[in-house]
């Protein structure tokens, strides 16, 4: 292969990694906020993502324009998040993590069965909006236009969250709540209400991710669990409870996963027989992100940017 082709292929793969990372970030942001501020491990976060995808898919099926469908998905997930917090999560603050895992695992089962009762088990169709369906020529390679939109959405969400957390009163309370919970409560802030808002915000972001990913993924029951594992890896790498950590962690996971899948099998080709190189490469690239996580944790046991360590 010529040098310029190799360079443009590498650029394309980096872009792929960034896009994947941006989507992981949308889900990871809510998960890490909830953990950082309320100390709750919410396994059902993927269910909120699934709800966002299903509601936006069915809005699209009923003829809603794409933007409306995304808003509907985000709103539904946010609402579901608020209800989830008020009814279940609220009772789990300060409880043992095992209790939280048990209760939120139950929520996954309830959400999955609820969604399959409402929409059935057959995956729903969602088309990429017509204007974004094509490909763009970027220098040496063509790239799906919709994937550029996803990168943009991820960056926009990151910027929005940064402004919200660093520049607003609500953000100040969120930061304070993450590190000095009792002091904030003693100063007369309604911590219960703050919790509901933060949980709803996290759910909303997960819903946005679900709605935006609906046109490129199978919208089906159980889709939340598939992506949740990657999300957990991202927030563990980035440091639990920190938005900045979630952002860096998500991009790292996206890049390592994508570049691993792109290059590990190719690099193995000269040293192993083809059929071994292909299947070993597939296996190695699947574990690449876990190797990343292990390396980061050995080097920095609390992750890259743990909350409260600024």
């Amino acid at each position, binding site marked *: *292969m010529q040098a310029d*082709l190799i360079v443009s*292929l590498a650029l*394309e*793969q980096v872009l*792929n*990694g960034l*896009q*994947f990372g941006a*989507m992981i970030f949308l889900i990871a942001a809510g998960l890490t906020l909830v953990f950082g501020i309320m100390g709750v491990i919410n396994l059902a976060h993927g269910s909120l993502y699934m709800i966002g995808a299903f509601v936006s898919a069915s809005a699209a099926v009923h003829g809603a324009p794409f933007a409306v469908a995304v808003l509907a998905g985000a709103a539904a997930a946010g609402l579901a998040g608020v209800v989830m917090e008020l009814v279940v999560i609220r009772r789990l603050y300060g409880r043992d993590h095992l209790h939280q895992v048990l209760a939120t695992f139950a929520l996954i089962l309830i959400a*999955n069965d609820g969604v*399959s009762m409402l929409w*059935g*088990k*057959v*995956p*729903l*169709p*969602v*088309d*990429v909006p017509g204007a974004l*369906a*094509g*490909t763009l020529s970027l220098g040496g*390679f*063509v790239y*799906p236009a*919709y*994937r550029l939109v996803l990168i943009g959405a991820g960056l926009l969400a990151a910027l929005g969250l940064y402004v919200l957390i660093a520049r607003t009163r609500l953000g100040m309370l969120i930061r304070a709540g993450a590190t000095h919970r009792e002091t904030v409560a003693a100063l007369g802030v309604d911590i219960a209400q703050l919790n509901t808002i933060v949980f709803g915000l996290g759910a909303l972001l997960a819903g946005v991710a679900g709605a935006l*990913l609906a*046109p*490129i*993924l*199978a*919208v*089906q*029951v*159980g*889709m939340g669990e*598939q*992506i949740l*594992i990657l999300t957990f890896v991202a927030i563990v790498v980035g440091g639990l409870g920190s938005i900045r950590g979630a952002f860096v962690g998500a991009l790292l996971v996206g890049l390592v*996963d*994508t*570049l*691993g*899948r*792109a290059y590990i*099998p*190719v690099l193995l080709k000269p040293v192993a027989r*083809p*059929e071994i190189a*292909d*299947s070993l*490469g*597939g*296996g190695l*690239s*699947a574990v690449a992100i876990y190797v990343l996580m292990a390396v980061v944790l050995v080097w920095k046991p609390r992750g890259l940017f743990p909350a409260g360590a600024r």
Partner: protein
Amino acid sequence: MLTFARALLAALLVLSVSGSSAFAADPPPLKIGMITTLSTAGGYLGEDMRDGFQLAIDEERGKLGGVPVQVIVEDDGLKPASGKQIADKFLLQDKIQLFTGIIYSNVALAVVPSVVEAGAFYVSPNSGPSQLAGKGCNKNFFVVSWQNDTPHEATGQYAQYLGLKKMVVVAPNYTTGKDAIAGFKRTYHGQIAEEIYTALDQTDYSAELARIRAANADGIYYFLPGGLGINFLKQFAQAGLKKTMKVVLPEFSLENHVIGAVGNDAEDLYGTAHWLEDLPYAANKKFVTDYRAKYHREPTPYASQGYDTAKLIASALRAVNGDLSKADAFRAALRKADFKSTRGAFKFGPNQYPVQDWYSMKVVRDPKTKKLTLRGVGKIMRDTGDVYSGQCKLT
């Protein structure tokens, strides 16, 4: 007064006892144990299979082959260990002698050996693993669907027939995925430009798609069942690759639910199948019409397999009048495969796996309804069994 009440009570008792004994003269329905996958992302496969099976029972108003049956359905959650537990419960507690239902081969490999060793029968509506097709075949194990390799052999044959010179092949990195690619390569003799293995829980395929683009092939084959294939196909089309490559798929990656979920991106895809919705057989027309009317969704190969499995069981139950203790007669009746299959000609090979025809198909837009539908193109293989049957020694 008291005596009157006593008499009345006695009369009632006598009546009720005689009533119940009259009722008991009807034998209890024959229990069929259905272990299948209803939850997880693969749940809709089991659902279609179960509903196809039930349709055959409804046709006879609760009977199969004139024998009243009761199907006990349990969800294995795609976990071999759960499947095994359910099978043990069915065998020991419910005393079930006739099993069916499993979708995934990893579950089947955990369940089938203990079922057939206990002397019970297993009739598979979907999974046909190679381990149970050759030396490991068993006289009480029957497969109605296909041997796992055959759909891929048919697809390789079709890619060859379409004149594709250079192909990319993609499958998940686990046993069934590797078997699929081996099956494809058994009949496709062109150049394999890239062999790509993906993770089973993968959602994003952008890295693979860039590799596929760089490979400059003229065709692609992938075995990515259910949601995996939907994700892949959507992203493949969005990357603009459909314009330069022909897509040739096994039936798992190209059935009505996949087309429904993928939408317009499914147009002009090629594939192979052992069953098609537009096959011109009377049994098939009846099945397709009744299935749509009852479930309000399009039938899939899984649904047809469930229906055919029930019809095969019905033919054998009729032969022994529902008495499974006549195991030899029941087995002989199953082997005869004396039923009208939705896919036309059907018989069993020496390992009790099917010998049948395979069709080529294409996704086209129906000129009347404007909807995308799978249309049969022709027969790609005739009377085809599997490569393992020679190693099976059943007397």
